[in-house]
């Protein structure tokens, strides 16, 4: 009898930490040429389609028949693009003071779509955000700081300042029988807005401190009416929006001003009025008719953030195509193991199955994030400079917002890739998994943004489905007091950016948990 010594490899036992697992998975991803090509293709699609879109977008502005360079967007005190057009009847105010007024009527006219072609169809009425009331403004220059207390067409009393800020007061309209009193008081740098229905019992609407309202300011009455917005179904693209001329006339009396020079005269300014091609006739002018103490102020235009200009996310048209390519790679990254039987080797080498899935998710997330970040960070500055060179008006964007859009889009791609990987691990079949993730992410997005469904249904789709993650791309905040179609088709998402991304993350986490459960419980 001879004792047989079992064979022992001389090699040192390898460590099987998570780092080794990550390295193994990274090598698997890196060494399949098709997958690296797929990721490169995704990055190319993002950059290429974005640049193609930017190159194909040209715009020029017309003043009557003459082509003129487009004006730069008007920038408000907060750095956002604003609209600042209204009729202002004002006096200078240096130091503390106040203005009190009674608004007893708001009427106006709107232009509706022509019934008979070529004949202007003008009806009487006011738009929801037509506004008239009292205002303290830094100067009569467009875009300067202000605070205003107003009665609106159908949103009741509001106090607004510096274009973006809006405080709601009591609802309800005005009439001769139930007028509304408004008062704006300046104490130091603080502006207080109060309203009353009888002129003796006052309620405070808001107390604000706009940064630019120091020193000498203008105090007075104003009126403005944004255009009448109509949304009509369009066979080709779902819906078309049009904004038509609207003006409002407010009757204000019992005007009391304190703090101004005694016997000061009222000056009038049609702020931001444009001229007809002849250069002297104002286009849609506002106006003032005064009889004794009664002021009838007529105004056109709006004082609000502007929707003009291309937002930063418009150059990211290629992200959807890139997303499809990345999701295909992510699905294959796991289903190829099942098809080739490699999964048995993988699980033999690393029996803790949950950790394998985790390592795969980390590797695909890192790879897609890196590829996506590189592509998006290139596309945004390049695309925007091409757009600007082609004469397009660009919406100004804060550096932090722009950074959020860029990093957020890369994160969106990474989370979608993890979601695709998890669905692939769950189904173990590549075609089914690819179709499932595309139906889950892209189809709701297409249905919601192509104006096929009504806006409210589209909003619910973008709240409940993984497509909610696209909200991270919205650079322009949704201002409720801005007259615009706040629909997904126009790029306005129902959820705030990070909440939307969190919805997608939740779907990815759920799919990952289900995949881990299946991987642990069933044979491979």
């Amino acid at each position: 009898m001879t004792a047989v010594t079992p064979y022992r490899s001389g090699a040192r036992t390898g460590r099987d930490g998570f780092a080794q697992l990550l390295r193994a998975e990274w090598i698997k991803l890196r060494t399949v040429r098709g997958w690296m090509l797929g990721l490169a293709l995704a990055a190319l699609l993002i950059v290429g389609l974005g640049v193609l879109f930017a190159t194909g977008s040209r715009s020029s502005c017309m003043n009557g028949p003459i082509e003129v360079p487009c004006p730069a967007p008007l920038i408000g005190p907060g750095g956002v693009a604003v609209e600042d057009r209204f009729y202002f009847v004002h006096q200078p105010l240096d130091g503390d003071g106040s203005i009190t007024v009674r608004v007893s009527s708001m009427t106006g006219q709107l232009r509706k779509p022509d019934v008979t072609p070529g004949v202007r169809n003008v009806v009487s009425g006011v738009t929801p955000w037509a506004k008239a009331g009292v205002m303290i403004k830094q100067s009569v220059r467009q875009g300067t700081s202000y605070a205003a207390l107003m009665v609106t067409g159908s949103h009741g009393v509001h106090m607004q300042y510096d274009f973006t800020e809006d405080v709601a007061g009591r609802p309800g309209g005005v009439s001769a029988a139930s007028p509304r009193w408004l008062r704006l008081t300046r104490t130091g740098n603080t502006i207080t807005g109060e309203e009353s229905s009888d002129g003796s019992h006052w309620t405070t609407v808001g107390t604000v401190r706009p940064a630019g309202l120091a020193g000498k300011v203008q105090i007075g009455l104003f009126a403005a009416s944004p255009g009448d917005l109509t949304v009509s179904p369009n066979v080709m693209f779902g819906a078309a929006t049009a904004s038509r001329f609207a003006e409002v006339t407010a009757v204000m009396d019992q005007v009391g001003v304190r703090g101004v020079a005694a016997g000061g005269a009222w000056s009038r300014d049609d702020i931001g009025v444009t001229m007809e091609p002849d250069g002297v006739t104002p286009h849609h002018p506002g106006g003032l008719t005064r009889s004794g103490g009664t002021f009838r102020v007529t105004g056109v235009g709006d004082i609000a953030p502007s929707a003009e200009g291309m937002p930063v996310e418009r150059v990211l048209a290629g992200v959807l195509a890139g997303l499809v390519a990345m999701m295909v790679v992510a699905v294959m990254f796991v289903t190829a193991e099942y098809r080739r039987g490699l999964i048995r080797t993988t699980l033999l080498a690393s029996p803790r199955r949950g950790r394998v899935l985790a390592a795969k998710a980390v590797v695909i997330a890192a790879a897609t994030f890196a590829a996506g970040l590189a592509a998006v960070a290139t596309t945004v500055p390049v695309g925007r400079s091409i757009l600007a060179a082609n004469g397009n008006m660009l919406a100004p964007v804060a550096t932090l917002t722009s950074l959020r859009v860029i990093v957020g889009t890369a994160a969106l791609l990474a989370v979608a890739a993890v979601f695709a990987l998890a669905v692939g691990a769950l189904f173990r079949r590549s075609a089914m998994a690819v179709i499932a993730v595309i139906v889950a992410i892209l189809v709701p997005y297409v249905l919601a943004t192509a104006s096929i469904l009504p806006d409210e249904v589209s909003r619910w789709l973008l709240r409940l489905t993984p497509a909610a993650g696209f909200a991270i791309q919205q650079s322009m905040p949704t201002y409720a007091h801005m007259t615009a179609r706040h629909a997904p088709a126009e790029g306005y998402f129902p959820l705030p950016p990070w909440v939307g991304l969190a919805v997608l993350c939740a779907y990815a986490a759920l799919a990952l948990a289900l995949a881990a459960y299946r991987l642990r419980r069933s044979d491979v």
Partner: protein
Amino acid sequence: MRREVHAEWTKLRTVAGPGWLLGALVALTVAAGAVAAAVVPCAAAGCGQDAARISLVGVQLGQAMVALLAVLAICGEYSTGMIRTSLTAMPRRATALAAKAVVVGGLTLAAGTVAVLGSVLAGRLLLPGSGFTPAHGYPPLSLADGPVLRAAVGSVLYLVLISLLSLGLATAVRDSAAAAGVVLGLLYVFPLAVLMVSDEEVRQVLWTISPTNAGLAVQATKDLADLPIGPWAGLGVLAAWAAAALAGSGLLLRLRDA
């Protein structure tokens, strides 16, 4: 050709996937159409909506199932190696592909007819509740009405052509995941990319050559003059896509090793 068709029919019939997919096609199409018919409002006369198009909106979801069926029918053979057996048994490769197209197209035709009829029925029952009443200028949806019949028949043909287009692309791509990505990218990302083009003329041209947009023009029953392409011509564009994909992939199938 008859024997090839029989062989392909046997292959597709004896796996579980196609049955489920065709069931999903009917269920998703009818469900999405019914939801749209129930929620799209028509507040007053002349609300401008196209009633037939609303009840057939489910086709846009159902087409994903059709695409998956076509992709699995061919890529499944490549992933298991079955394609080599198939081509050994049926050496005339173009005929083999044609037989596959007949079977996949035929199954889509049958299931698509059920799905579209279900959608029209759902629209007929649900649309009046959303305000699509005769008082608002919308008679009940009926196949006896010429444009509605065109929309319904056209939608079925649209699904068949999508299955052929998907089969052609998948035969060229071979890998199921990549094929699914290419097909769905063409079906869903192309129309979105068209929306983002700001130049009106370029957008019209892209819209006219997009398989989804032009193909679905056949669903329009009103404002036909506003469409850049007529209903049947639009379906013709999709047919051209499908024919080109099948012809190209038939050529590739002959030229490449399996």
